[in-house]
């Protein structure tokens, strides 16, 4: 059967323009899909890796030591406030799986959007373990979305905060949904501005609902103890890592 060569279609300006437009469309759709389904996994795993590195540098100076079987309940040591944007702690939330994120000082965009940090400490709030309110913020979605699952905490869930040489343990108690202007949730005594604190509270804030900035999800946890090495219960979860 004689095969006639297919007539070669000529490249025209319109044809190239059409192909370019289709390409742009595919790229834009790809970005939308990436943002919704992939971005938090990809950027989040970068934040996780950065946190694992930083956690090692926090405990790297001293010999790692045995995990602490018992939590101490006496007065915990409190570190001085770090400089703006400085990384100073790592938060572990086993409810979210293998979850470690670095806390940076100040709730600036720089800290919140950073792939090396991700959690942002309200710089006017208490430091971990300090009497008062240790308050941090994190994105619900986007830029790693550390707090995507913040609404899944169950009463009694433990949250571990590692600083240089000290581990603070908090236990989740309750949450509320507030307007973005409700700054009193990060007051030393939440929602009672001006009242002198007697308890050690940890507050985490994020956006609600997902992909929206309409309201804020606020979670409160209370301090239960501290240790000088990784608490044994967390070490067990982390597989002895």
């Amino acid at each position, binding site marked *: 059967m004689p095969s006639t060569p297919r007539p070669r279609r000529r490249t025209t300006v319109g044809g190239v323009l059409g192909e370019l437009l289709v390409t742009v469309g595919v790229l834009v759709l790809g970005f939308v899909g*990436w*943002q919704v389904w992939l971005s938090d996994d*990809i*950027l989040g795993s970068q934040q996780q890796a950065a946190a694992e590195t930083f956690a090692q540098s926090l405990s790297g100076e001293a010999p790692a030591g045995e995990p602490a079987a018992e939590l101490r309940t006496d007065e915990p040591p409190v570190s001085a406030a770090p400089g703006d944007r400085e990384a100073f702690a790592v938060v572990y939330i086993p409810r979210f799986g293998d979850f470690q994120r670095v806390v940076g000082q100040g*709730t600036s965009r720089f800290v*919140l959007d950073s792939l090396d940090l991700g959690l942002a400490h309200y710089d006017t709030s208490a430091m971990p373990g300090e009497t008062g309110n240790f308050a941090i913020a994190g*994105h619900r979605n986007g830029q790693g979305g550390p707090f995507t699952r913040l609404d899944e905490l169950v009463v009694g869930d433990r949250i571990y905060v590692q600083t240089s040489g000290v581990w603070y343990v908090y236990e989740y108690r309750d949450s509320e949904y507030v307007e973005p202007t409700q700054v009193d949730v990060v007051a030393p005594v939440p929602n009672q501005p001006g009242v002198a604190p007697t308890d050690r509270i940890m507050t985490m*804030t994020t956006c609600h609902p997902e992909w929206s900035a309409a309201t804020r999800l606020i979670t409160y946890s209370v301090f239960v103890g501290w240790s000088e090495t990784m608490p044994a219960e967390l070490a067990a979860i982390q597989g002895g890592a």
Partner: protein
Amino acid sequence: MYGALWRVLPGPWPVRLLIVLALLAGVAYALIFHAYPWVMQTFFPTPDATVE
């Protein structure tokens, strides 16, 4: 444009197909791990998660 690319590629069509797939994979990788993260961080800041 893409027709021209196809004609420029060497070899019989299965070879060309393999090259095209490899190119596509490379482009997808660059987009997913480099271009899209940069676009998101630069042009689509996520709304603040803070109370203020």
